[in-house]
């Protein structure tokens, strides 16, 4: 076995034996030119190439319209949060004589009946456990559905899907009574449990689809190497599910964070109110305090947005893998 012929030896660039034969191998470092080769084109041709065709223009126009429609309300909210009330009432889109101020944010942060500061902390207290527990329980429930054979598997899975189809209003009444009876009404524990139960359905479905895409041989290899079911789950399945778990975290976080209905039904004490509940309280008595509401909304909204931006890369991977199967 000669050195050059061993297919396992990584070849050093520039020493590729194929280069001699067809001249298309790697360049050695010295031969690489300073600038990338460019095609010789005159300005007219370049302009012609860069001008989009009519159908393309139409597509652009539609895409831009949709984007604007989506972004305008957000822009309005953002502008309103930064301007005094009298300017907002004339229309946030009037730019002449604009005063930018953070006063709305300060007021909302320390609003007397329900300060945003406390509401955001409350929301965090509910959201973080509701997300983490759903991720763990969801993965543990999804794994058997993806891999094991057990009696009533299809029926159980169907039941889980059925729960997803129910509107939240439907389960609210039952949960309300249950929480009252077990003494968890108007506590974060009660609200967290409701969120966990409500979120598990789609999380199990989502993670199961993702887990189906993990090759069975990986688990068989681990089994032969001596891993128990639990060890396989912890050392193989969970690490490989990271993208899907991140997707779950982002979606569930956004859902729980923004949830209005469940806190409205299950939380009574004003000092326990969550951010989405507090927002309507900021309207004021005589005149709607648009600036306050807007500032509060932006503060509420910014948390899931930041989370999404941080985890975007994994989120996309997980979504693609879970949906393509």
């Amino acid at each position: 076995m000669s050195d050059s012929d061993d297919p396992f030896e990584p070849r050093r660039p520039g020493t590729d034996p194929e280069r001699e034969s067809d001249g298309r191998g790697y360049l050695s470092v010295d031969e690489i030119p300073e600038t990338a080769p460019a095609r010789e084109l005159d300005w007219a041709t370049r302009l012609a190439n860069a001008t989009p065709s009519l159908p393309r223009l139409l597509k652009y126009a539609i895409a831009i319209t949709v984007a604007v429609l989506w972004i305008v309300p957000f822009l309005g909210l953002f502008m309103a949060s930064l301007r005094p009330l009298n300017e907002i009432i004339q229309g946030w889109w009037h730019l002449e004589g604009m005063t930018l101020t953070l006063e709305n944010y300060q007021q909302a942060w320390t609003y007397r009946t329900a300060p945003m500061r406390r509401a955001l902390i409350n929301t965090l207290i509910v959201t973080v456990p509701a997300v983490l527990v759903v991720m763990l329980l969801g993965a543990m429930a999804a794994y058997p559905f993806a891999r094991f054979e057990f009696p009533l598997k299809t029926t159980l899975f169907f039941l889980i899907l059925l729960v997803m189809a129910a509107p939240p209003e439907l389960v609210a009444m039952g949960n309300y009574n249950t929480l009252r009876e077990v003494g968890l009404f108007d506590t974060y524990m009660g609200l967290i449990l409701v969120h966990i139960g409500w979120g598990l359905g789609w999380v199990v479905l989502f993670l199961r689809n993702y887990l189906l895409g993990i090759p069975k041989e990986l688990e068989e290899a681990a089994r032969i190497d001596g891993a128990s079911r639990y060890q396989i789950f912890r050392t193989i399945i969970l690490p490989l599910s990271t993208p899907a778990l991140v997707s779950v975290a982002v979606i569930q976080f956004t859902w729980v964070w923004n949830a209005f209905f469940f806190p409205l039904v299950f939380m009574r004490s004003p000092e326990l109110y969550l951010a989405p509940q507090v927002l309507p309280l900021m309207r004021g008595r005589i005149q709607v305090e648009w600036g306050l509401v807007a500032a509060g909304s932006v503060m509420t909204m910014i948390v899931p947005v930041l989370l999404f931006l941080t985890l975007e890369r994994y989120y996309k991977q997980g979504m693609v893998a879970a949906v393509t199967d």
Partner: protein
Amino acid sequence: MARVTLEHVTKRYEDIVAVDDMNLEIEDGEFVCLVGPSGCGKSTTMETIAGLTKPTEGTVRIGDADVTTLPPKDRGVSMVFQNIALFPHMDVYDNISFGLRLRDYDKEEIDRRVDRAADIVQLEGMLDREPNELSGGQQQRVAIARAIVREPAVFLMDEPLANLDAKLRVHMRTELQRLHKQLDTTIIYVTHDQAEAMTMSDRIAVINDGRLQQIAPPLTCYNEPANLFVAGFIGSPSMNFVNGDLANDGLRTDHYDLEFDPAAFPLEGIDEVTAGIRPEDIYLERNTESVVDPSATIEATTDVLEPMGDEIFVYLSLDGSSAEMMTSDEASTASNQLLMSVDPDETIEADQQVSIVLDRSKVHLFDAASGEAITHGVADESVHEAPTADAEGGATEVESGGQRD
């Protein structure tokens, strides 16, 4: 190191029988290939040995222990998978040491063993790479290192080379043989590629429809196939088969007669006989001097030529019809077709009249109804001692090794 024994192993799924009453005895340190067409049950057989599947009936023994109900980790086996199955989120070191870390070996012992395994499969200096940074061959080496690092008693390989390109595959075959010599461990190797089976193994177990057809050294399977399936499966291109009726002086087929003394062979109660002859045992009449025991001359027309470089495959038509629309498998069983292999220096053209002879010492007879081999070589016993003695030796070999129903 251990011997592996399967006793009456049957695996039934809801509506199919994947493995049917399999009896296998694999010696300590032996390299055995399980070969057969796709879906023949060879992988299921391996999975029952590995413990990934529990047999419906029967017993699996490794060494002296009955392991039928033991989980894979307690069987002392390790396995290499077709799709390599490296853990993508671990680097090479973590992949190789996975099983050792699960068993709580101390760090030094793990390092020592990983280094040794990496050394054996020539992966030095790559321990901190991620699997996706490795080439296909390197990945397969990591998988092999992961399997040998635990120093298993039995090594299971499920088509480990199937996903590699052709050149690498040939190279890895030699590597695996070297590995077997070095480790001296029992290796059970599943493949559908008969070239792999022929070149690497001590014995080949040919499996079809969940049943063991023959287990014997590669050349025995080739020269003395136990039945029609083995005869047709081993060897490429396939053996020529022709059905014929027995007469007092030999076999009559549609297009030629084969002379031999039927009384010399155990033919009682057999109505129809299939004769089989490999392409390389058919000769042009002008080369007859090299044939020990030629048959009578058969007239044929050459049809298609397939020059392979080291030999030429010639499709012969016995009645003037063409085999063009047939696959080589169909052609090998059609009574009016023969596939012959000739020396590349031979001057031969398409659509040419040729006279050929068969080497009678290489003609196999099978019971057409059951497919069982009757004899390998129909040469006259009194004249030619040697080939017939071979054939008889083969027959006993077949009986001792071929554990068919």
